[in-house]
């Protein structure tokens, strides 16, 4: 949609004082709550009823993408707001998956409210606003982010949320700062375990030692956060249902099913998939395209996975 990317600049910036009754109670309780929050979008109290911070590495692997999409997909029926830091990587996919699951989402910027950082995320900012979410910052006007501002931003992400979900983080990751804030604020701490050898999982291990509870599915998050089903929105659940009908899995040779089963295990390149399923590559491309169009399979960084 041409011209759409500037919506964020066009939409009016508003300011919410700490004395305002709408100021989220949870955020007010922290040691140094922002005196004033600048935001775009429509501020509704129920947006802050149940917030889940989803944070993690800026360098997301295909595993991370899959985890984020999977968990937030399950949360689609729940009454929950996804809060994240609007960075590349896990943050981006958290916002994106929330939008895809019809969940409201709040992006907390490290920079001035009139700046969008990173600039390449302009389009997702306007999508967040369109979907009834918020873009928030404690800094007015235009100002470029500095290192310390990211840390300050993290305290807001943790402060706004009832629980925090950590997906992929290296040992010195910034998302561990958010994690430590959340720990100090006594939020529900959750982390998704991953490969123990992966550098990008060492932060997660740290978090698990530090009291995060391991979660293995969307249901785990629902239980730990005590989320309730959102009565007014039952549509999204059906849309994101992951139950496979038998008919979908059976194809003339059963190849379709074979592919889906393999891709549900891990993300694979076409090359590997071809060896595992013994399907010739040119035939496999056809199958994968069909699955992609029907939404059963997705592609990231040249690899495919079944959501």
């Amino acid at each position, binding site marked *: 949609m041409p011209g759409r990317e500037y919506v964020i600049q066009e939409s009016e910036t508003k300011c919410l004082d700490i004395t305002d009754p709408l100021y989220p109670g949870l955020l007010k309780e922290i040691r140094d709550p922002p005196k004033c929050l600048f935001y775009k979008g429509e501020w509704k109290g129920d947006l802050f009823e149940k917030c889940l911070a989803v944070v993690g590495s*800026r*360098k997301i*692997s*295909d595993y991370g993408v899959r985890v984020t999409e999977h968990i937030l997909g399950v949360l689609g029926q729940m009454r929950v707001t996804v809060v994240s830091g609007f*960075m*590349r*990587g896990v943050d981006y996919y958290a916002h994106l998956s929330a939008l895809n699951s019809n969940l409201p989402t709040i992006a907390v910027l490290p920079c001035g409210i009139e700046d969008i950082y*990173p600039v*390449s995320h302009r389009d997702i900012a306007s999508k967040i606003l369109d979907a009834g979410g918020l873009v928030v910052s404690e800094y007015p006007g235009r100002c470029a982010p500095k290192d310390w501002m990211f840390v300050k931003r993290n305290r807001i992400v943790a402060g706004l949320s009832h629980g925090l979900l950590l997906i992929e983080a290296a040992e010195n990751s910034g998302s561990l700062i958010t994690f430590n804030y959340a720990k100090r604020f006594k939020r529900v701490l959750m982390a998704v375990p991953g490969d123990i050898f*992966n*550098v*990008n999982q060492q932060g997660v291990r740290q978090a698990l030692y530090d009291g995060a509870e391991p979660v293995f599915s969307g249901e785990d998050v629902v239980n730990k956060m005590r989320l309730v089903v959102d009565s007014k929105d039952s549509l999204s659940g059906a849309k994101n249902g992951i139950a496979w009908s038998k008919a979908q899995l059976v194809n003339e040779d059963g190849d379709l099913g074979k592919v889906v089963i393999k891709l549900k295990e891990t993300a694979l*390149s*076409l*090359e*590997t998939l*071809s*060896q595992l399923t*013994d399907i010739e*590559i*040119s035939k496999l*491309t*056809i199958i*994968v*395209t*069909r699955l*992609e*169009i029907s*939404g059963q399979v997705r*592609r*990231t*960084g*040249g*690899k495919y996975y079944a959501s």
Partner: protein
Amino acid sequence: MLVKVKSVAFKGLEVIDVLVEVNINNKGLPSFDIVGLPNKSVEESKLRVRSAFVNCGVEFPNRKITVNLAPADLHKEGTFYDLAIAVGVFCAKNGIEVNDKWYFFGELSLSGELADTRGSFLFAKYLSEKSDSSAFLANSALSTVFGFRGLVNRCNYYSVNNLKTLFSFFKKEGTLQPVKDQDSVHEIGRLRGGDQDPTIDDIVGQNLAKRALQICAAGGHNLLLRGSPGTGKTMLAKSITSILPTLSDSERLEVARIYSYTGVLGGVSGYRLLRPFRNPHHTISYAGMLGGGFPILPGEITMAHKGVLFLDEFCEFNRNVIEGLRQPMQNGYINLNRKGQTFSFPSKFILVAATNPCPCGYHGHPKIVCTCSDSKIFSYAKKLSGPILDRFDLSVDMFPPDDFSNKAIVGNKYLSNFQRSVEVARFTQASRFQKTAVAFNCEMSNQDLANFCPLGKPSRALLDNAYRKLNLSPRAYYKVIKISRTIADLANAPQITEAHVAEALQFRHK
């Protein structure tokens, strides 16, 4: 006395008649001057000619000699005027008229031997279309000329070894016989690639990339390979020469003209000419890639004409150089302006580019950890954005093969199958586009797509669905149709089916 001798000049690849006028004046102080915008290499010809005369036992006239190269406002460069000037001086001295259909071309050594120089093929090609004319050139140059089938030889070629024989011919003391083309040399092994180049079967695994290469070779589509170091990107790109068809006779002539102009044709006979594969380093300059300098030289894009331009480490190339590729790729030629003149060079090539996913190369690698920051990865990928990415029809992500012992990966032999199918697909395209300016599927305009690539209902529905679900751009939408056409051609299918479209969709950019 005044004598007029014919030679040629090059204006880019264009050949122009040049009249070498030599006047020997008996009055005035002895001198030897060349006028008509000669450059240093032409200017030096005076010394070579004088020595050659002496060493052939002919006295060099000790008079006022003026040589004019007409048209006098055209810059002349090259050493090949030596022969014409020597002939002019000799005939002027001895009062001999020179036939105005005789053309002279060649560089002299101090001993009077004739040497081949760059441009000799262009010269011969130019004369081959002029009936009744005669070309005098070095023996070594002739062997190059005769290797080309499809060159209509209407003129007579005289092979000249040294000045002495030529002088005795002019004095009617000796004879020179025109040399005839030996047809036998034509069919001696037509080679596809160099002996050192890997063939497609030398690469382990990477079946998807091989398939992409096959499509790229068949339809002339540009291909982008992305993957970690060592996955075989470079080797794969080099192996494209093994599946491309050999040069056709007309293509061979076009390539030889360019090679001759730049002087790389050397002693290669026509039948040994390989499809160009150019692999410039990523530090290449703007002029090196697109052509430039004065006297003007074509760049890599022209050297790759009718062949493949392979840009390894694509993201490391200077941004300007990459952006400069856009227009010549679109047009199939490049116009360069130097010193008030416009030169046009052809530039129709298949672009194959290879790039790492990030500066360290290991982003997304299954085992090795990437050490780049997220912004580094982002800005690296951003070098490929927009208009340049649009030039690539096919895009493939490559990963290291999982298992070397697996028969399924190692054992596949594609070479002969690929060669055959590519030739078939090219033939199909040639007959389809007979009455149009288009040569390959990749060149089709949207109008051509409507004419030549009608989609059936199911394939149309699939494509429309994909457009919506997979967030294709309108341009990507049309690219998919073009690739489907090539895939259908490879399968020798008259109609584009759903399967062709579905396969084409997997080669879109991520």
